[in-house]
């Protein structure tokens, strides 16, 4: 059902909330009658529309997102395209196959590896709670539930309403029956009323994106028997090995890619790098690379301009800059590179320990003696790490990557790919569709006879 509004639907009575959810739940029958192949085709056809600049859905998204999410039109286009690239039939197929090598398990029992039959079911109602202001996260989440044939109520983040709503509208245009299996409803935090309460109480699965407070609060309201999936806030980083700094053109190319990774989503993404280490001993020093990064961020201020910065963030940027300036003045070797406003800041810091930035394209660049020392620096932050752009030789990417993984990183990538994890990525370390299903196994009446060795 299409309920594209942030309005009165949230003001449910207990009864109306329950009947609203019952209606959603009732669509599970239709959903489960579709084959996964058919679902991918239909859902993918909706997603593809967002890649066409002339499509009315795409146009509506371009119109609504800048104001809603505080992104510039250029950034809005980049975000829509980056997100929608993963909503096409091809990419959705890859997503399904990555989590289910035999996608038929979503349609019915299929032979498993040990003679049993296996089937994956998504349930009859999922409740997803989005976060913040990265447009497209909500629509992606909703899509995942539909792929496992589970009706879904999405409460998007405040600045992610448009894309989710438009996506559902597109689905309604293409396949009204299928669209009955999803609803997008926005309400401000703590104003969920009966609908939120009923959804938390009765959903088969609750998926929450958000900060620790949100996750803690919602988790406490979900029955202990309900699977609860939390994508809590995380942060990302990067590092450059000295072997990639031999040629100044390559150092510059990496700086350009890193600047784009920082700038994308105005650094609000959990995939946005906040700290970058530069290994010492390369032809380009860490300080020189920091300057190159600053120049690239400066250029992006024109080609991919940042949206408005709220006062609290600007205040923190000024504090970081002012403190860094003092550090520089007192001879620590630290430096600050900054634009005229607060649109971007590069803090060159000699202290190798990571610290998150305040966003708004604020990035810390730190020299490090050897990339092999990274994992011990990251260990204190294990629970909140996510994507790590590792620019190094193939061999070191594997050895250092191994250590990063042990330290808590779940995705090792390059700066170029960092902002756009592929549809099939192991989201925060697990398969995104696998996390949404329950397995049913149908065993043979007798245990298979053990074969002779």
């Amino acid at each position, binding site marked *: 059902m299409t309920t594209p509004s942030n309005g009165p639907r949230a003001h449910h009575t207990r009864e109306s909330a329950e009947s609203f959810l019952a209606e959603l739940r009732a669509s599970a029958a239709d959903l489960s009658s579709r084959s996964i192949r058919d679902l991918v085709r239909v859902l993918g056809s909706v997603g593809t529309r967002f890649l066409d600049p002339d499509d009315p859905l795409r146009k509506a998204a371009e119109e609504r997102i800048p104001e809603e999410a505080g992104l510039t039109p250029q950034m809005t286009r980049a975000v829509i395209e980056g997100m929608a690239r993963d909503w096409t039939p091809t990419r959705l197929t890859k997503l399904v196959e990555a989590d289910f090598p035999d996608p038929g398990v979503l349609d019915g029992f299929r032979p498993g590896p040990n003679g049993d039959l296996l089937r994956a079911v998504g349930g009859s109602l999922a409740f997803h709670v989005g*976060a*913040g*202001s*990265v447009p497209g*996260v909500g629509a992606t989440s909703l899509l995942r539930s539909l792929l496992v044939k589970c009706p879904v109520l999405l409460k998007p*983040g*405040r*600045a992610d309403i448009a894309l989710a709503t438009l996506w559902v509208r597109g689905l309604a245009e293409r396949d009204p029956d299928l669209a009955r299996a999803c609803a997008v409803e926005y309400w*401000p*935090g703590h104003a969920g009323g009966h609908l939120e309460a009923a959804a938390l109480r009765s959903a088969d699965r609750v998926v929450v*994106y*958000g*900060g*620790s407070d*949100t996750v803690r609060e919602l988790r406490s309201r979900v029955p202990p028997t309900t699977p609860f999936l939390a*994508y*809590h*806030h*995380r*942060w*990302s980083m990067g590092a450059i090995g000295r072997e990639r700094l031999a040629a100044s053109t390559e150092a510059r190319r990496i700086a350009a890619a890193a600047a784009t990774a920082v700038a994308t*989503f105005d*650094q*609000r*993404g*959990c995939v*946005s790098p*906040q700290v970058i280490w530069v290994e010492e001993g390369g032809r380009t020093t860490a300080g020189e690379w920091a300057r190159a990064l600053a120049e690239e961020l400066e250029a992006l201020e024109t080609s991919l301009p940042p949206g408005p*910065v*709220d*006062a*609290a*963030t*600007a*205040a*923190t940027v*000024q*504090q*970081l800059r*002012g*403190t860094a*300036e*003092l*550090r*520089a*003045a*007192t*001879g620590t070797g630290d430096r600050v590179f900054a634009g*005229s*406003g*607060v649109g971007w800041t590069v803090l060159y810091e000699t202290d190798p320990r990571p*610290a*998150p*930035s*305040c*966003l708004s394209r604020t990035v810390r660049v730190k020299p490090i003696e050897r990339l092999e020392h990274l994992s011990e620096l990251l260990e*204190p*932050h294990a*629970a*909140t790490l996510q994507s790590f752009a590792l620019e190094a030789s193939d061999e070191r990417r594997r050895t250092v990557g191994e250590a990063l993984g042990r330290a808590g990183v779940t995705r090792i990538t390059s700066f170029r790919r960092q902002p756009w994890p592929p549809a099939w990525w192991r989201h925060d370390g697990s398969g995104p569709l696998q996390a949404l299903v329950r397995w049913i196994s149908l065993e043979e009446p007798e245990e298979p006879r053990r074969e002779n060795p």
Partner: protein
Amino acid sequence: MREPTGTDESTRRDLRRELLAAMSEGVQVPWSEERFDDLALRIFRYQAEFNPVYRALVEARGMDPAGVSGWRQIPPIPTRAFKEFSVAGSSPEPPQARFRTSGTTGGRERRGEHPIRDLSLYRASLLASATGFLRPEAELRGPDWADRSLRVLALLPDPQERTDSSLAHMAGVLAEAWDDGKGGFFLDTEWRIDHLGFQRALDQSAGLGAPVLLLGTAFAFVRWLDGGPTRTPLPPGSRIMETGGFKGRSREVTRVHLYAALSDSFAVPVERIVNEYGMTELLSQFYEPVISEGVDPGPQARRHVGPPWIRTRVLDPETLEPVQPGRTGLLSHLDLANLDSVSGVLTEDLGIQLPDGFRVLGRVAGAEPRGCSLAMEELLSSTGR
């Protein structure tokens, strides 16, 4: 070339004497621009020469202290610098106190520290302001003046036990100068309320005895009021100073409610309930001048003013240029009482520039999280569990 100066100690002695004399005049008579500039610039040159951290900043900016001609050109340091640097000037003796900022972010982040070389400057500054804004009917007579006809009840820890709290110290100074001997402190060192003790003190103060000055953080008052409906009408002439109420809270809702509840609970009229805005990094404080002016525009329309030896600019958060009157920006203070550290302090507090003061809006956090990225504040709180 710099002007020839005396030694740092003789320069400081003169500045200190001048400051103490100025503070003993009280807060009611405003200073001319020239008077403030004159003292501000001499203190700036002193700090630019003898405060190592500040001197480094001034030199790194290529500033010639002698060429600075107005207080608005004096560069501030950010409040976060108090967490990383020793902001004290060079001093032959150890500090008399080390005030620390509260550890609000899960305890992982280092707390800011303001080493106080000379508590007498703090005492003189705070006593003059408190007299002018909380007790304007009294007449300040020098820093050693005392008039112990009030009862000072503080929902704050005892300054003897929390020697690192500038706020508790301030309450201690007020109690020492004003309390009739029967007041006290009713938070323990962990800032928990001694409910029985406080109730007993209130009961003993009720009726027609000495007027009470009730001091406390907004947070403590809220907890006290939440504890149960105990109405204890305080004697006529009583007043309440509430502080720390802005950070992270919605001013519109909580202040109006809090003041109404306080007024109801203690029979103190709302126009005698005053917010104090102060910070560990500053030795001077700002108050809502409702008692001193005898006019209250209502809790939402009030403004803050400080003593004449502190001036505040409201700066555009993006450019750090002054905003137009009526606009919102970051508060940047120049507190001459900070003689022994750094006078210029850029805060993270937002305020509105008014013709004669400013209105504190507090730290305005985004209404919703900014994204799925973990920003610094949350990281610090999430790892502190």
